[in-house]
């Protein structure tokens, strides 16, 4: 086993900074920060805890569902307003090819972006090994034979499987990291392609590439030179202990990344910094803080010398087992404002069509509420994709039948009758994004990223799902 490829971590140096990027005076109108026209970024927003998307996207008058018609009454039957159900009058109506759905009232900005054609909804996405029916689920639920993903409905296992796009927990790298591996084949970038704002998530780690971390990043601090030079010598110490080597790598990465990132962000011109600061100004939640830093890194991408970046941010709190209504409204409001601020920044920087933001969550939640006015762990869930390149204003995938014990439920048994099987796999979702980002759909790279793709022959990787 060879040692960690230290070439990835040699000192980074800033590219020559263009005069335009550094002009601090006289940039009256357009922002002086220049970002390559070839630049693209993916931003994964992971909703930790399991997003109750049954209350995020609600049918009002649709041709969806097994019977060819699904309306608000079907939703209200299983989620009455006396419990956690929303009233039709509260919903923000959106159209999907003539059908009418409603978004949760907190998603005001997202619904506006949706109406402008720059946001799309992905219906009933989830972790699947192969296309799965209730009969298949019931035949294999107790077999542990690989037909179904392992440890369904377990937070940690499902988060890992979403991030690795590998259902059997055997992957030691995330699919975002494997995208970076693919691009690294044609030469390592001058700074890590991937940047993670969330502790310990594997999404951004490749098999050979390592992400930069902004979890505790603070560009206002800087270690004095005599302190870093001494430490550099000690970080070379290796007496064979694996944990010591791991700690050396992480600390060395921290020293390298901080110096370069801080310098780049501190060199952003004033109009750019002010735009970011203004758009995020009145938002103080952790998700907004992460996206604000992401915006700064994107703005600094040319100084970092990269034209492809993948970001991972996360918002916690979605595990709404009890007292869901007010909590969920608050969570979506925070998400809505953060996504909006970030989208506006990309427009300010003139790169809205070059940044695609998409949600993930380890699972959706049980259609049937529990007695604590909350919901429990389930499986498939709806997701949002935003960006100037998105073919928005519509829904992709197949909307499920909202019936407890119905045709999409894992079983009729009360413990699972409200758990709906996803119809679109993570693989198709991710492969569509990866294709837009620049991964070839024909040379085998896509299957390295998404090993279950061959199990879904109806998905065409070259065409993608179509949302971007």
């Amino acid at each position, binding site marked *: *086993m060879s040692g*960690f*490829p230290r070439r990835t971590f040699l000192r980074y140096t800033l590219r020559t900074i263009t005069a335009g990027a550094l002009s601090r005076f006289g940039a009256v109108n357009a922002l002086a920060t220049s970002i390559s026209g070839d630049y693209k970024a993916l931003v994964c927003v992971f909703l930790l805890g399991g997003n109750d998307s049954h209350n995020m996207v609600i049918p009002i008058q649709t041709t969806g569902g097994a019977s060819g018609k699904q309306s608000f009454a079907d939703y209200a039957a299983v989620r*009455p307003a006396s419990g956690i159900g929303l009233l039709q009058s509260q919903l923000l109506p959106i159209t999907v090819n003539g059908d009418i759905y409603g978004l949760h009232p907190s998603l005001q900005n997202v619904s506006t972006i949706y109406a402008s054609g720059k946001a799309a909804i992905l219906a009933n996405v989830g972790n699947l090994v192969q296309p799965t029916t209730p009969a298949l689920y019931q035949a294999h*639920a*107790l*077999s*542990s034979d690989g037909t179904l993903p*392992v440890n369904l*409905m*377990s937070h*940690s*296992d499902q988060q890992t499987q979403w991030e690795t796009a590998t259902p*059997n927990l055997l992957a*030691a790298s995330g699919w975002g990291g494997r995208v970076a591996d693919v691009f690294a084949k044609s030469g390592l970038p001058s700074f890590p392609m991937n940047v*993670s704002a969330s*502790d*310990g998530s*594997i999404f951004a*780690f490749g*098999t*050979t590439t*390592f992400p930069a*971390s902004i*979890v*505790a*990043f603070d560009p206002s601090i800087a270690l*004095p030179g005599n*302190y870093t*030079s001494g*430490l550099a*010598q*000690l970080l070379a*110490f290796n*007496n*064979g202990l*694996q*944990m*010591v*080597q*791991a*700690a050396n790598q992480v*600390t060395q*990465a*921290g*020293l390298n990344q*901080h110096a370069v990132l801080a310098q780049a962000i501190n060199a952003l011109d004033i109009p750019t910094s002010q735009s970011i600061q203004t758009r995020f100004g009145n938002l103080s939640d952790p998700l907004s803080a992460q996206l604000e830093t992401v915006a700064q890194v994107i703005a600094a991408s040319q100084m970092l010398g990269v034209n492809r970046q993948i970001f991972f941010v996360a918002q*916690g709190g979605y595990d709404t*087992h*009890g007292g869901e209504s007010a909590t969920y409204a608050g969570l979506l409001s925070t998400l809505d404002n953060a996504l909006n601020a970030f989208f506006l920044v990309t427009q300010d920087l003139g790169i809205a069509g070059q940044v695609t933001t998409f949600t993930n969550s380890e699972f959706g939640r049980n259609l*049937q509420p*529990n*007695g604590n006015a*909350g919901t*429990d*762990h389930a499986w498939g869930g709806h997701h949002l994709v935003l960006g100037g390149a998105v073919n928005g204003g519509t829904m992709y995938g197949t909307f499920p039948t909202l019936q407890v014990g119905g045709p999409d439920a894992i*079983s009729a048994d*009360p*413990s*699972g009758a409200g758990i709906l099987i996803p119809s679109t796999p993570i693989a198709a979702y991710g492969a569509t994004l990866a294709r837009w980002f620049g991964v070839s759909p024909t040379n085998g790279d896509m299957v390295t990223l998404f090993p279950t793709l061959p199990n879904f022959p109806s998905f065409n990787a070259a065409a993608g799902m179509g949302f971007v």
Partner: protein
Amino acid sequence: MYTKSLFDPTSIIALVLVLLPTTSPLSAKQTNTPSISGVSTGSNNATCINTPVNAANTIPIGPYCATITGANFGTDTAVAVGGRTAIVLSVDSLTQITIAGAGVVPWDGTAQPVVVTSGGVSSLPFFITVGTPNARVSWSAASRFLDQTTFGPTHDDIVRLQTLGFTTWLIGQFRTPQNSPYGTTDLGEYPYYPSRFFFNAASAPDQLRQRVAFALSQLFVVSADTLGTPENVAPYYNMLYSLSFSNYPTILSAVTISPAMGAYLNMAGNVKASGGPNGTIPSQNFAREVLQLFSIGPVLLDETGTPVTNNGVPVAAYSQTTIGNFARVFTGWNIVDSALISPMVPNNETHDTDITVNPKVLLSVPGGPVLPYQTTTSGDAATELGQALVNIEAHPNVAPFISKFLIQHLVTSNPSPAYVRRVATRFAQTNGDMKTVLMTILLDSEARAGDSNVDGNPSFGHLREPALWLTGLCRSLNSTVTDLSNALPNYSATLGEPMFYSPSVFNFYAPTYALPASFGLQPGLLAPEFQIQSPSEAYQRVWIAATSTLTGGLWSSTFSSPDGYVDLSPYVNLSSEPDLLVDALDAMLTHGQMPTSLKTLLLGAIQTTPPPIQQTTLAIYLLATSSYYQVIH
């Protein structure tokens, strides 16, 4: 040939010269040999506080000051202890000098010579005792053991453990009187309770109980981020702390009916299904997490804690139906105490009392032993809860699952399967008796191998989580924190471990976290604490260490503020002999086992920093941030 005779005038003069009194000016050169009559530590010299007081003619391991008494100490006196230069702080008189030195670990329990040299003449060696003669265990073994059982080794704790031996020390810790770490009359806002955690961890005598309670709080997790304030979490922590040395069934039972846990995982107010597909179902939150996190884990394990697999696929330990049935058992319990101290109480009106139409089938082990109460037999809320807990506790997963967790928090992230089996066996035999399990974990050959075979096992050890890194430095450097200090709680939160505010029921970091492949290390190496050690958090550790040593923080040369105080002058005294300084730091921080190559690196890094204080703080900073110290091994 010339021979002297007795009557030779030169020989008579020589004879006369020898017989003359020594005060004769002619004899002064030959009779000013310095001599030593005694060595005592803990003098009241202003530069010599913080030296442990020892018996006469004894020096401790680690940095010390001592007073040497004797005769003929000129102003040019030099001193060597054990053949190594000691620093003369002051020549107080012809008969007394004050020195600073370091007792190095290889000298522990031996006699070492002290030699003073004045005017080019050396004294005869005066032998002193170093450290603890007749110690039951070595300094290195004791120091390592304390890194596994306390929040950081101190000089006095090491010596005491050396004197008692491991078993007697453990028994003493089991018997140490407990208090409530979080008083019920405590008032104050954040970060008062987190401050109290660090104050107790850094200074209270019941170190093992606190360390075990800390581990248990990371297994049976509740959090102020859901419960609202740390004040709502404090009684729960008091409960874990009081039960740390009891047994697993008692702990699991107390956790299950705890009001804090009831509020956190929604068992409080959980009601039976209202009926029909458009009715409500019981909350599955506690039912799932009590199995997945608090007892058996999601997959079947063998007795070594290794997942059982079916053609490479891990075999599930329970199904969704099982979860649903446990959820039905855990209905009908309510909080009656708004202070969240008194346990929840049952109410059969909201409890699912059905045992006939749809029996509650609980855990079974296909092909394995028949567990008690695989189906509940009573419709009563309290009885069924008891039956369900017995059913869980009887599952063969519990012993390896809980044992491995405790090993990971106390000793090493990657215990060998055989180590887990040895501990799990004793766990199962004693129905989870904590004292037995702890002794088995700590006295096992795998935990103790590193006492003498330093770093012989390349996958051994674990990263100091933020709390242990912070308290370890405080204790080992004799740095005191006050119970109102904001510094440690804020540092810990920046580093990913906000005390009382675990981000989810999965704790700050998961026991199953493994290093990603791109580290290029042993595949599947578990490294739980690395889940909150991203590069940016690693940078913050370095920053915290730098500012706490550079600009007058908790590990700087002297510091006194409402946050705490420290006096590192015993180390500063040694800075003119950097190799002694490094040896002293090695004794206190790295068990006296620092490899020569690392010492050389450290010496090289500090040698160009001349002033004594900066050189000392630089050495402390470098060692504190070195991976060799950051990993407990």
